[in-house]
């Protein structure tokens, strides 16, 4: 009887602790299932060569963030050599399923779950658009409009407005990651190149066989970048540069993806900088930036939104890294 009471007390304690947590410093998980449709996993089933590469990409960011966090971004070989090569090995293993990112970065997930969930939802939008492009749907545009509406219904949705990425790259800690870890930064930008470069070729290819064919040179370029990271690039690849037709047809999605990729860069900088030395400070800054500058719910007050009709980048801040060859970002969209 005494044991029973003790166990009942323990159970009640768990429930009370859960309730207390719910009332105090709590983060809800808020996982959402992807938009359910017949074309789900069309990329995996129809164009496996590309799907495998995206599964490899999924590993990269999480592995980077976890290693930056655990090393305090103080150990350059641990990032540039060990963590980067782990990522390359995973990509080389040609994974047929996307990895469990919580197993890759358990500490980062606990540090900044809201930011991770923001990434997860945007990555699901990426996947959905690839699936639609590779599916045999006749009316792809309607399907894409539906998934965008579904995405934008999420409280974790990144703004579909055009943001001034150059200004978002001028925080006190901005560029710290690319300066300290140029190889891994260029590897990350290579992922972003792959993610946006495939849209126009896939959209233009009428059949699966042609789609398979048109992504080949992009994959060759991508693997060339992995082998020899393009450290000469001065800014992340933009959707408008690499898939202009897609960006013109779906400007909101192009904005979401560019904003997503910029948010990745911001978080890499926050995890690298010495200006935010503790995990708690990094967490607060990640959440501040995510919620104030990236979430669509902040559109009314977001100072980085580019007003309609104005150029993408403000030009008010330095665009070029010292010593860079020119003001162009360097990734022309041509393939090696």
């Amino acid at each position: 009887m005494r044991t029973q009471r003790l166990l009942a007390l323990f159970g009640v304690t768990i429930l009370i602790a859960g309730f207390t947590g719910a009332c105090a410093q709590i983060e809800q998980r808020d996982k959402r299932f992807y938009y359910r449709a017949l074309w789900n996993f069309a990329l995996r089933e129809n164009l496996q060569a590309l799907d495998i590469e995206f599964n490899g990409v999924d590993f990269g960011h999480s592995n980077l963030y976890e290693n930056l966090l655990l090393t305090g971004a103080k150990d350059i070989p641990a990032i540039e050599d060990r963590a980067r090569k782990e990522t390359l090995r995973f990509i080389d293993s040609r994974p047929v399923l996307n990895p469990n990112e919580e197993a890759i970065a358990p500490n980062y997930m606990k540090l900044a779950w809201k930011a991770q969930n923001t990434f997860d939802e945007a990555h699901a939008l990426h996947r959905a658009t690839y699936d639609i492009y590779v599916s045999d749907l006749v009316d792809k545009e309607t399907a894409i409009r539906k998934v965008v509406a579904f995405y934008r219904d999420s409280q974790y949705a990144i703004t579909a407005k055009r943001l001034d990425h150059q200004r978002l790259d001028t925080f006190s800690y901005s560029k710290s990651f690319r300066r300290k870890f140029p190889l891994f930064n260029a590897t990350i930008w290579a992922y972003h190149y792959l993610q946006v470069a495939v849209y126009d070729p896939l959209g233009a290819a009428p059949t699966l066989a042609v789609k398979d064919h048109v992504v080949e040179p992009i994959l060759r370029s991508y693997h060339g970048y992995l082998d020899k990271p393009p450290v000469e690039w001065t800014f992340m690849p933009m959707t408008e540069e690499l898939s202009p037709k897609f960006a013109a047809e779906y400007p909101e999605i192009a904005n979401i993806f560019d904003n997503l990729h910029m948010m990745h860069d911001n978080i890499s900088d926050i995890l690298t900088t010495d200006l935010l030395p503790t995990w708690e400070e990094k967490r607060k800054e990640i959440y501040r930036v995510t919620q104030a500058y990236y979430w669509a719910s902040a559109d009314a007050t977001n100072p980085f939104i580019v007003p309609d009709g104005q150029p993408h980048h403000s030009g008010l801040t330095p665009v070029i890294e010292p010593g860079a060859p020119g003001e162009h970002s360097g990734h022309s969209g041509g393939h090696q």
Partner: protein
Amino acid sequence: MKMNTSRVVLLFLLMVPTVVWALDHDNLDPNRPIAIEDAYVVPKGEIGVEGGILFSDRKRGESRLVFQPQLIIGAFNNTQLELSSDVSTDPRSVVGDDKSGNLTVGALYNFNTETLSLPAFAARVQLGFPTGVNAKGVDTAVTGVMTRSFGRWRAHVNVGYTFLGSPQGLERSGTYRVVAAVSYPLGYPTSFRDTIIANVFTRQSDLVGQRNPTGIGIGLRHQVSSRVVADIGIGSELFGPVDRSVFFSTIGLSVGF
């Protein structure tokens, strides 16, 4: 009969090497494959169908096969609804709340995701309706769930209490159960398809005057494809009443869509 049942199970294990479903191999659901669950629910909007077969070799009495179908729906934010049943061979010998053919509806609510300072917590409420053999009254179960990670290891504790609506004979009117487990994703950094789970458990016996069935289990969940997880597990009730399971094994599939 006991020998025949064992043969059936063995045949099943050989014929279906990748059989129990869960939508994400790292998201633990009770009995898939062993008695533990983590504090996380399926994503909002997901529908999961799970099914498995439990083989229980009892120290005294007939061995049992139990089919365990379950439907899980991510109905709301951080909330899953469940519909499940256990269908057992030798149904008239079952005592306690898991009568063969009972229909159980439940809800699991996840209070929070784990942070650096706070474990993840969840609570489950279940109602067992007396649709099964020899069943009377509506049973009610409440369970508290906690998950805490340590690097890639995750530790889980489930503590629950079941109130029997209409206990029969020597059945207790209420029973507690406690399960503790650890899980670990195998394969990092080159593979992310498997999670291994080990648990220890004790629960109050179904009948008055008997010892707690207490034991251990170990299981594996394997991501077969984007939508399908297979699981397999074994275990033993090391201590407890004379009709305890000296060996049990499960095999099953979970499909998410």
